[in-house]
């Protein structure tokens, strides 16, 4: 019997080991990629503010980079405001950055936020000089909780903070009668 117990115990240990390995494997795979989205908004004093995008915000924009809900702490910390630091690759200067965000958020309803994820710094020769650009993904997040499936890529001039081009806009399949109201009525003629 003792012998049988030993075998059983060893087998069970092996079983547990396999389980633990599998568990670790799962945890490794579930690890979120490096957090690099930043959320920008304009506060009541019309100041541009930013913080590291929350998992909930990333969920809404279909970034594919959400943390598993089970791994989110029960007591969530409020988003930490950043003063001036950004992910290391995002080098657009502070002043230009604020101007860029202001321009992107102008015309939008109060409470609208934008999420920006830097992807790459690009050096491009234009004529005799080399311009430096930031390639980013931009997504709008609307306060009325409409899913922000309108993501696009943008190239930002690092010196001026201006967007020089955009591409990769989302494609939708709205059915007849369900498309958003885009119809416009002329108010006059020439």
């Amino acid at each position, binding site marked *: 019997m003792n012998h049988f117990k030993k075998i059983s*115990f060893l087998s069970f240990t092996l079983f547990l080991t396999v389980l633990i390995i599998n568990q670790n494997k799962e945890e490794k795979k579930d690890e979120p990629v490096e957090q690099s989205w930043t959320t920008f908004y304009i506060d009541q004093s019309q100041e541009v503010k930013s913080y590291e995008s929350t998992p909930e915000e990333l969920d809404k924009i279909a970034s594919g980079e959400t943390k598993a809900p089970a791994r989110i702490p029960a007591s969530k910390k409020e988003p930490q405001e950043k003063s001036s630091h950004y992910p290391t690759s995002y080098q657009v200067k502070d002043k230009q950055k604020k101007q860029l965000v202001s321009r992107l958020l102008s015309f939008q309803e109060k409470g609208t936020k934008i999420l920006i994820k830097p992807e790459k710094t690009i050096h491009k020769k234009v004529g005799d000089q080399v311009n430096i650009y930031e390639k980013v993904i931009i997504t709008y997040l609307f306060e009325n909780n409409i899913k922000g499936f309108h993501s696009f890529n943008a190239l930002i001039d690092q010196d001026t903070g201006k967007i020089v081009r955009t591409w990769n806009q989302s494609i939708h399949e709205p059915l007849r009668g369900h498309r958003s109201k885009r119809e416009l009525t002329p108010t006059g003629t020439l």
Partner: protein
Amino acid sequence: MPLEAHREVPMEMDARDKKAQGLAGFNKVITTKRIKQTLIRSAWMFFISLAIFSCLPENKTTTTRDRAQGSDGNGQVEPVNSGYGRLLDDNPIILSGQYNLSPNTNLNRYLGGQELLVLDQYLNLDCQINEEAPLVSQCIRVKQDQNTPQLNRPNAKWAFDTKRNEFLEVNTFGHMKRIQKLYFDVLNQKYQKTWEQLDPHYESSIPMETISSTHIWNSQRSLWGYANCDLVNNASFSPATFSICMGRDSDYETVRWAQDSTIIYHEMGHALNHITFNLRNNVNPDIPYQTNLGSLFYDEGNSIEEGIADFASYLMNGRTHLGEWAMGRFNNASRPMSEDDGIHIPGIDTTAAGRLSYPTYVTYDPNFPDDPLEDVHFAGQIISHYLVALTQDLEKYCEVENEKARKKTLALIIESLSELGDLGAKGRDFNLEGHINHSADHSFEWIRINNPVNFRSFAQSMARSVKSIIVDNPLNQCQYTLDDHEKLLDSYGLLLFRTYNESGNHKDYGHLHSNTHVATLNRAQTVLISKDLLKLSPEQNASEAFVFDNRSDMISATQSMKSAGQITEISSLIESDLPYNNGNGRISPGEVFGITPNLYNDSNSMMGGVQVLANDWDHFKWTDTHQDRPYTKGRPCNHLDGFPSQSLGGADTSGETGENPGECKYTTRQNGHEFGEQLAPICLVQINDDDATKWAGQNELRERLQLEKNRCLGGEDSPNDCFMRAIKGADQAFFSHIAPKKTWAQTVSNEGESPKFNISNLIFMEVSPWVPPGTIFKCRYRARFTNCNDCFHDPKTDGLDFLDFEYSGGRPFKIINLQFTVID
């Protein structure tokens, strides 16, 4: 019955449930004795379980796919082996054969045999073009939606009850995998023929790095599939986040779009189009960005995109209809891909005269044929029908199975898109830069606005591909001829080109090599129309243009275009609540307004794909070229349409040869970047001298008003559009078609109704608040259309295409001058 209700009786407990139970157990206080007992009991249970499972019969695994039914007689899902799963092979309508299938039907009975999906515990797929190619790790990943973690199945068994959300993930993953595999197979074949010399006759646009670089798969990014998105009656593809989203029906909670494989294929079609259109860009280290087919809510690039995405469904299942369950069953929105589909109106058939031809059917909705609509999905049907008909031709003339013919058509599509989307401006590895899309420096703008992909350029590119890959290649053993294909294109109204343009559009070499000419006799139905027959409405009391300046409309349109990324920069002089937009239909200082020329087709045939451009172009003769850029002093050129005369401020073009940069008659070769050349904004301003009135550039008005440069719309670096300018990204308008002897508004609206304008029908402009009321502007828009005889063919040649640099100028366009006075 709500989908979630079925979650209470899961077929198998998944890993998340097990984990939750395990954690609860750890909270118990237990004694050492009980630990021993538990361990012994657990070990016993483990061995007993092992013994039981080892005695169970194994499922048949000799083939990758097993076509046996995936459920038993009671509608329960049959178990599968590790790594395997069960899918709905087609959509439930087709699998059941019932077009009125109930939304509450138990779909388990239509599950297919077990199919190898993935041995991993997550729905992650690694991709590889061939065994020598590097692995693209996790090229496809699937989860339910953005809010849930990936499904974790340590046993890698992927059979689920179809009522469970997990099934949606598996079905999405399985069909994404199927089409991805087929796409890589075809790409690999093309690579082998082109670069491994398996076929010495084969020339291709796919780059040499196709195999060696993992960047082919959108720079190694995972394509996410969200199987159960919070989208209602919708699905989407986002190239920026590289994800597809499958939505749900608005009325029936149980009906999910991921249950319909044809829609998964359609969305995957977009993803693969994106990869293919950027095939050359993704491996080009000098191109740090990508490009897209189409840039507006409605244009022909986006229509082609939709047509090819529809074809992706046919590519996979050989059926010429898609979306019967997700779009068709409850929303009357499924789409056909062949003229012999019963959904079509009488008169549409597979004869040469009965095809779904361009531009007649660009707004045709087979579900609502009496209510035409400008929509890329409807215009795209012309492309999907053509691609299916081409496949059927290849099946017949190459004497191959339909499945092989479908792959041949995919190879042709890859060939064309890869060439047309090349931002490196070569099209093929051994071509010179400038062969296509002008140049690497300006290709992005060429594809966006100056020479975007339209039905003509796509058809011409497909013709080139058919010629080089099918007709001229003896190894293909096809009896298909250029005449056969030209006749097919003609039956679709797509024989819109006079040559195959093999020599390309290079500024120096484009016309030096020989080009294959289209046989004129083959153009029986396609009509090419002179650009001069596109004009402002000549009808009595007709207005020249429609103006849109309603405040809420303009705010809403601006919001929409900004959030979509179509426009990014509005002048800082324009206040964001548009307080000056008074909706009076007149143009006032400080406004953003939309404008649509009231275009008229003065021919006897339908015009298709009318594009109006408001971007800068070469129509100024600069006189301060010794200064640093931007040049600001000059006179408008008048050699194209006589406006403005020299007495009204126009440039003196006497003695010009057209050979020297700086002349009006010389069109810039470098899009305004060579010495003496610079593009000019479209709007001129009227200036009143003491003794004369003249048209001038806007900087001249600024100087007269002594307005500082930094008070210009674009700031101090942009004095030439100081007071009035088109908003970049909203600087073109597109119209699907114009009927003969009608305006566009008369063409698209039913009798007695007002036309429905959408954002892509308008050019959006901004007016500086510093414009003195009473100032008169004249803006010089350029217009063209797809079935135009002299917008793409250079009249100076024997039907050759215009070289790309010409699209910086005015020759390929009809100039539309619109004059308006700014009033307070």
